[in-house]
């Protein structure tokens, strides 16, 4: 993985600066296939140290949207 994530604070940064925090799901449906576009949490470990909400296509690693976690719908 070497895609870029657009941190609302720091701008586009290498994914290596972030820690993946899992999908944003109330409860993962058992046995469900992964969706094409996931809502995810990412933590800007080597940057501003804040949690982001990210909408990402897990097949292409195209990042559709980033925002602060907990602020507005992801």
């Amino acid at each position, binding site marked *: 993985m070497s895609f*870029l994530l657009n941190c609302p604070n720091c701008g586009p940064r290498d*994914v290596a600066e972030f820690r993946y*925090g899992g999908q944003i799901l109330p409860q993962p449906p058992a046995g469900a296939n992964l969706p094409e576009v996931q809502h995810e949490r990412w*933590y800007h470990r080597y940057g501003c140290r804040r*949690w982001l909400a990210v909408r990402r296509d897990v097949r292409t*690693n195209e990042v559709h949207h980033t925002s602060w976690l*907990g602020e507005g719908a992801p």
Partner: protein
Amino acid sequence: MTAPEVYPLLPGYLTDPSKPLTFGFEGRTIRAVEGQSVAAALYAAGVRVFSRSFKYHRPRGLFCVSGDCPNCLMQVDGRPNVRTCIEPARQGMNVRGQNAWPSLGFDLLRVFDRLSYFLPVGFYYKRFHKPRWAWPLFERVVRHIAGLGRIDIQARPEGHAEVEHLHADVCVIGAGPAGLAAGEAAAAAGADVLLLEREARCGGHLLYEGKADTNAELSAGMRVLLETTAFGLYEGNLVGAFQKGRLLKVRAGQVIVCTGARQRPLLFRNNDLPGIFLGRGILRLARLHGVSPGRRAMVVTNHNEGHRLARQLRALGIDVAAVADSRPEVRGGEGGFPVLAGHVAVRARGWSRLRAVEIARVSDTGVIETASRRVFACDLLCLAPRLVPANELLYQGGMRFTYEGGRWVPSQAVPGLLAAGAAAGTFELEAQIREGRLRGREAAARCGLRVEELGGDDAEVRPTPALTNPQSAIRNLQSKGKCFVCLCEDVTTKDLGQAVAEGFDHIETLKRYATVGMGPCQGKMCGQTSTEVCASLTGREVSAVGTTTSRPPVVPVELAVLAAERQHQPVRRTPLHHWHAAHGARWMDAGQWKRPESYGSPEEEVRAVRTRVGLIDVSTLGKIEVFGPDAAELLERIYLGEWANLAVGRARYGLMCTEEGIVFDDGIGARLGPEHFYLTATTGNAEAVFQWLELWRTTWKLDATVINRTPALAALNVAGPRARDVMRQLTTLDLSSAAFPYPAVREAEVAGVPCRLLRVGFVGEVGYEIHGPSAYGLHLWEALMAAGAEFGLRPFGVEAQRILRLEKGHVIIGQDTDALSNPFGAGFGRMIRFMKPRFHGRETLLRFKELPARTRLVGFHIPAGAPQPRDNAWARRLEGCQVVEQGRPVGRVTSARFSPTLEKYIGLAWVPEARAVAGGEFRIRCDGADLAARVHPPPFYDPQGERLKG
């Protein structure tokens, strides 16, 4: 051996004849000049056999002279598999051959060449299996013979490999005519351009084809990195490249790949003899390194390239015996050399170097007319087939190619990726330059820069015309002797035929079974040929067969370079680090931290804590502050226990769990105010716990603030029966158990420094953790050391702390438990407050509760059979040993030490439920022998906690 011949060096060459040097090669001293490659200098000194082939140990000589093929791999200063044709010679270096015994010139292992009947393709899947008892013997022999080179485990890479991160609007890979044009066009449009070139000079094929002045001034706005090899194109336009001892990570908006093209071997018997070169290899040897390749050359081609090459050879003073061109209609004669139309090479003659070439006419249907065979004596055979684009990086970037008119051309556009020149299938110089310029402008436009429209001829690249006879280079598939497709792995046309006959007819399975393209060159030499052979054998079109997947690295990269980033390991030091160092601390790593393991004798340190008083630096603990109206709610939901009911001024042990019910950290939480908590986390998890709290505070939108104060605060733990006496010297706080009980928190001045005091007891004695500003850490420590002198205070390290905690039976999360541990089996059940409506892991833990715990974590001691006198190194070896029942593993030991307090070996172990009763016996397998252990419910020491609370 031929006498060394060195050309007069002209501008544009890589060498500097004014700087001579010497190096050693197998007991000889070799002369070279600066800039010259090791292999070129060896060639000039008469060396012709450079390596022995992988399987048959056939002699191999210089072939591509561009770092692509495996023929020149040698050991250089202990480094195996160095591509000596591109490795610059350095004064005093030590070069040796490899994969040969006893020597490169005379290799007894060439016997395998004669045994090839017994070593068919995929032989390692078929041989050595029977009889089974013989395998250990085979294995020893095979291990000795297999592989290339020998790793010198004593060798250390020179200097430190470094990593550099670079950014550019446009990154151009390759500074040939197309790359230079692309870079300059993009830079002219205002783009920030980075140009990577693997050679020491720009120019690409112009350098050795003598076509242009390569000293042209480069435009401003373009950064050029020479001797920089791109090895991979990764997601997000990340270009991986290396220089000597340096890894480059280039993040570019647009990447333009201009990596040119390569020649490849033609197929005929003995096509691997030393003296057979790729045409461009000869030119590189002569023009880049100033070494005369030979005297009399034969050129074999299927393209105009061969005729151009013949003229170049003549210009270099090499006699051209003839040009054999497989195209029947071609004419020649004006170059001053005979041209044999419709002829191909059928056999090379010679034992360890080329003596002559057999040429024969080929019919229109591709049949070789054996009667027309002619023999040409020569010492050079130059292969000049059609060029194959060096498009590996483009494939990695997602570009795909189709085979049209005998050429591979890009078939789809990829955002962020462009190609120009031969890599894109454009072979005419004019068109290459025009294409480069266009792609450079396109890249700039894609970066959002304004680029003026071009009109007329300049607006498009004139495509390289399709070949009139896109005739396959494949013939002689049934020829006698060996005809190599893959030089790296010694794969012959017969091997491919056999593999296809066995059913491996898909190009990817053919590659895996026959190992064609799996050697050091990774298919750069044999990819196109194996595709064509596969097409010919299976009666399919080349385009239907396709190519194998290109993966990074395109070129070999030293692991030391790839590991450059890992060589820099940040080390964290506590505020007391230098005191510890000055007082004989033996260090241990705790995550990124350095911690004193002990100051000499852990047992003496244990005794001091148990009988007098000890002092330990616990500054590495995670220290987290939580405040706000929802602070208590946040902790209630994160930890397994209760917090809302914790009184101000009191502290409590807390455990936290993931959603999966895995306990991941523990620590002390103290309430400083109704809306203010202070938490500690374990050393290794400080950051993770902080992130965890932040994640859920954010997700649940709780009105609380979480601050990680770990590096801002020093923490010292003074513990032992005289701890209170020591503290009384430094603080006016009422330390009586009535005023400051266990476990509680107070804020007070200690030695004049405002601190937080936690009365806790990891080691099981009266103890105070003093948390104060890092800047005053040393002051606090020295004040405590001075105040404690009269009470026999002694500093102690982590090893003593571990023994002390084990005597108390305290569990270390991550050592005594892991992600598979049932929290109830670990004894955490009584700390879980299921009456809380929600907390992390509640649902999973409820399910765990219903499950029977198969194993339990218990304390044990070893009644007999352990070494006497005490041996803590032995005890530590028990950690990780299996608990066995009737020879089967049923559990494991997680902690073990000799307790100097109890004069016993004690520990913690996971044992089957049935054994987990006081006095229950179980067996531990250690060093191959079984040892009896007896369950002893912890704590081993002070079970009522009277000393702790006293």
